[in-house]
């Protein structure tokens, strides 16, 4: 069974990877409540795309099944899974439970 910490580790790795590409003054806090999407997001849309792609790829490798975050379901969730690492972890745990 995949734990919340394992999911967050994948998300944090994607955020660290993004930080490597950002200027010193633009780096983001690698934390569960960092705003990734929405009016108060701390990153631009292309950076969010970057995180999503890295999380999909990292999670698929780590968990051993294809993790797809860019389907209609994710987009139609009442609260966007991309709002923060916390929200994304919640969503990914649902996907993981369905895959077990």
């Amino acid at each position, binding site marked *: 069974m995949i734990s919340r910490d394992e999911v967050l580790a994948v998300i944090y790795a994607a955020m660290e990877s993004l930080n490597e590409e950002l200027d010193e003054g633009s780096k983001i806090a690698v934390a569960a409540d960092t705003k990734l999407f929405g009016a108060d997001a701390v990153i631009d849309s*292309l950076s969010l795309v*970057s995180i999503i*792609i890295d999380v999909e*790829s990292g999670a698929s490798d780590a968990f051993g099944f294809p993790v797809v975050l860019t389907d209609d379901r994710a987009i139609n969730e009442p609260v966007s899974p991309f709002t923060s690492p916390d929200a994304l972890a919640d969503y990914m745990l649902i996907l993981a439970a369905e895959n077990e």
Partner: protein
Amino acid sequence: MGYEGKTVLVTGSRRGVGKTITQHFLDKGATVIGFAKGESSIDHPSYHHFQVDVGVPAEVQAAFGQIAKAFPGIDILINNAAVLTSQYAMIMPPAAAQAMLNVNLFGAFMVSREAAKTMRKRKWGRIINIGSMAASLEPIGDSVYAATKAGISTMTNVFAKELGPLNVTCNTVGITAIDSDMLAQLPRHKIEEIIAGLPVPRFAQADDILNVIDFFASERSSYITAQTVFLGGVN
């Protein structure tokens, strides 16, 4: 101009223009990955064939899963795969129309989408899509084909905006008629009539196409993006 160290993906690599482009990159030192529905028709140590129907998203994604394990990424993508049924719209078989949408437009989208992910990290890439004079000339019988090729140019330009910050350029080569299996499906006299009306009234040669591809692919063309270059004076 050499392509040593570059990995090039060509869709529709098995025959026609795609095979010519594939051979060109191989001759210039590239590693080439070919996508085609059928088996490989190219025997070269630097050629790697994947049997993929680009109109089927799951097949495209599965192929990119394999590519990720064996290659560092895609440097240059040539979206060439296309199917053509030319027929009056009122009698165009719906399945043929759907196939053109799936392969020519949606297929190019899916392959570009996945290839762009591999270009993203390395901050370098060239996406070159094969368009057609049909997009501009809008010939009778080509309602869907011409629409897909016009769509390719528009799609390319949006990709150019999205990928510009990643140093990935996206351009279209609008090719004219060239002797190929695809062209052989059409009445020769109709093609000749169209060709006769072009500013340069002759069929395209392979090098006409390769010249523009080399231009778009070159290091010096990093400031050239969201462009469609038509051959033969079509505009």
